[in-house]
């Protein structure tokens, strides 16, 4: 595991670009680039040395390149204070970055048919995944959705890396009007998909998971819960996840995820402590003797 452990670095910004509704920052970060596997993310400190913002911001790694010893690209929408600050960076500024973080997407051993589903900036980690799958001989189909045209990310690249690329927008301004799940069923059938990979907002992941279940194929989801550290120490990013033993634990999405098997995530209980979760109030009464030797995470 030592080879994969994350590194913290002060990375010079190479470029800052505007890509549709997103900003894309490329930094020089050899240690992160070389360790990266698709699905992993970085945690970025924001606001400089005397910043009033203590918490790191998590961004999926969208691309790594070998230039300058290794570069890492991420893209983001301006949302609050930290992303506003990031959007103002210029080349040569330094960013304090930790990565790569989190569990990557598991790759199939065999060359199977994969459909990758992304919502908004959730598309970002799917591009390196698509490349990795293609290298293994997998068929890749993409379904990318967003609220409207500007937020659909990477349409051109999508058409290049994927066998088929389907786009949906809530307002119909680009591709099919509707949600990714409105298009996904058809794609699964047409492409005879063997597995689904999805990244995007929780409600989308829940629906994608349900849909995969209906098609009886496995689904890997990359979840997004509020994060503060990204390294597993703050316990802020928990989601209820069912373990191999059938027990639900409050799992940290930064280290136990962000990628989980879809059917293991209790989407309906996100934002709660399910009554039957390990260590939930009243939990003890239920299973006093079975002495659980594993915890959440």
């Amino acid at each position, binding site marked *: 595991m030592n080879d994969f*452990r*994350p590194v*913290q670095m002060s990375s010079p910004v190479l470029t800052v670009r505007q890509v549709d509704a997103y900003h894309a920052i490329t930094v020089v970060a050899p240690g992160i680039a070389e360790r990266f596997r698709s699905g992993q993310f970085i945690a970025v*400190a924001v606001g400089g040395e005397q910043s*009033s*913002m*203590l*918490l*790191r911001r998590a961004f999926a790694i969208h691309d790594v390149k070998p230039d300058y010893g290794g570069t890492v690209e991420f893209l983001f929408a301006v949302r609050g204070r930290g992303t506003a600050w990031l959007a103002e960076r210029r080349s040569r500024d330094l960013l*304090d970055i*930790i990565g790569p973080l989190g569990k990557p997407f598991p790759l199939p051993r065999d060359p199977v048919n994969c459909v990758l589903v992304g919502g908004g900036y959730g598309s970002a980690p799917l591009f390196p995944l698509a490349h990795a799958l293609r290298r293994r001989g997998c068929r890749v189909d993409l379904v990318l959705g967003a609220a409207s045209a500007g937020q659909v990310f990477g349409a051109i690249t999508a058409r290049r890396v994927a066998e088929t690329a389907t786009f949906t927008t809530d307002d119909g301004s680009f591709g099919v009007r509707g949600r990714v799940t409105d298009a996904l069923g058809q794609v699964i059938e047409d492409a005879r998909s063997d597995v689904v990979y999805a990244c995007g907002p929780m409600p989308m992941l829940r629906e994608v998971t349900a849909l995969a279940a209906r098609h009886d194929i496995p689904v890997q989801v990359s979840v997004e*819960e*509020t994060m*503060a*550290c990204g*390294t*597993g*120490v*703050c*316990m*802020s*990013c*928990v*989601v209820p996840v069912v373990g191999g033993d059938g027990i639900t*634990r*409050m799992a940290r999405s930064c*280290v136990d995820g962000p990628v989980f098997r879809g059917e293991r995530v209790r989407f309906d209980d*996100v*934002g*709660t*402590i399910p009554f039957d*979760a*390990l*260590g*939930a*109030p009243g*939990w*003890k009464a239920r299973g006093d003797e079975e*002495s*659980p*030797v*594993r*915890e*959440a995470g």
Partner: protein
Amino acid sequence: MIPDLRVRLGELELVNPVMTAAGCAGSGRELAQFFDIARIGAVVTKSVMLEPRAGRPAPRIAETPSGMLSAVGLQGPGIEVFLQRDLPWLLSRGARAAVSVAGGGPGEYAELARRLSEAPGVAMIEVNLSSPDLARRGRHFAHDPEAAARVVRAVRAEARPDIPVFAKLSPDVPDLVGLARVCVEAGADGLAMINTVRGMAIDVDTMRPAVAGGPGGLSGPAIRPIALACVYEVHAALPEVPVIGMGGVRTGADALEFLLAGAGAVAVGTAIFHDPSACVRVLRELEQALVERGVERVASLVGAAHRAPGAAVRG
């Protein structure tokens, strides 16, 4: 000159005065990816309870100016798993393991102390008094000096005599010095302060509390002045009682402030979320600060801010 960084807090001897704050260092493994955890004075664990605990629902945290609010709710594996898995791992890495404990009543605390005393290698027990007292409708033990004393007495009675017991205090109490005194009289070998400060944030979009459930604990540099006032005040009243100071330590200079105020050691909490190497960086910066000031022994600085202006610091 290489400054002597050893400190002594009563019976607790540490190779240097920098430790992690309870609940901010995971199981130790997460941080060990970034630095050798044997290099710092001690690793203080998150508060261990008898049973596994799921904690509070998300969102558990919110960012505030130079601080954060949290309500994690002591999520953890329980003492069983801790003793089987986490403690041995910490010891195998050469870390000094200080174990924070939390319970619903003196009995649970006592049981935890007993279990920890049977295990080898526990360097210190820190009694988290900000845990809800089940007998008093969830009020923190720290709010009631009587209840706090009962807990400390129970732990001290059950803990092996060679394991120092520190009482961890919350600043949100009517009379901090009074509480400190009561804890010491009940057998605490030292004090750790401060725990988080009660606070709140409201999400102006959802128009609801930003942390699920409403109030949370405020931590980080924002509370450092509050923590320093607490340490200063308690050290002034009880100069012989060892204190572990914490609350917003981010740099070596911050650590120095706590030492000068009267802390014999300092713990780094929230800063770890920002910088996983914070503890070793703080240690390095502190050492550098001593060199710059020509101070040979860090221990000589403890409480120096209380001395008359101009009084020389004994090197």
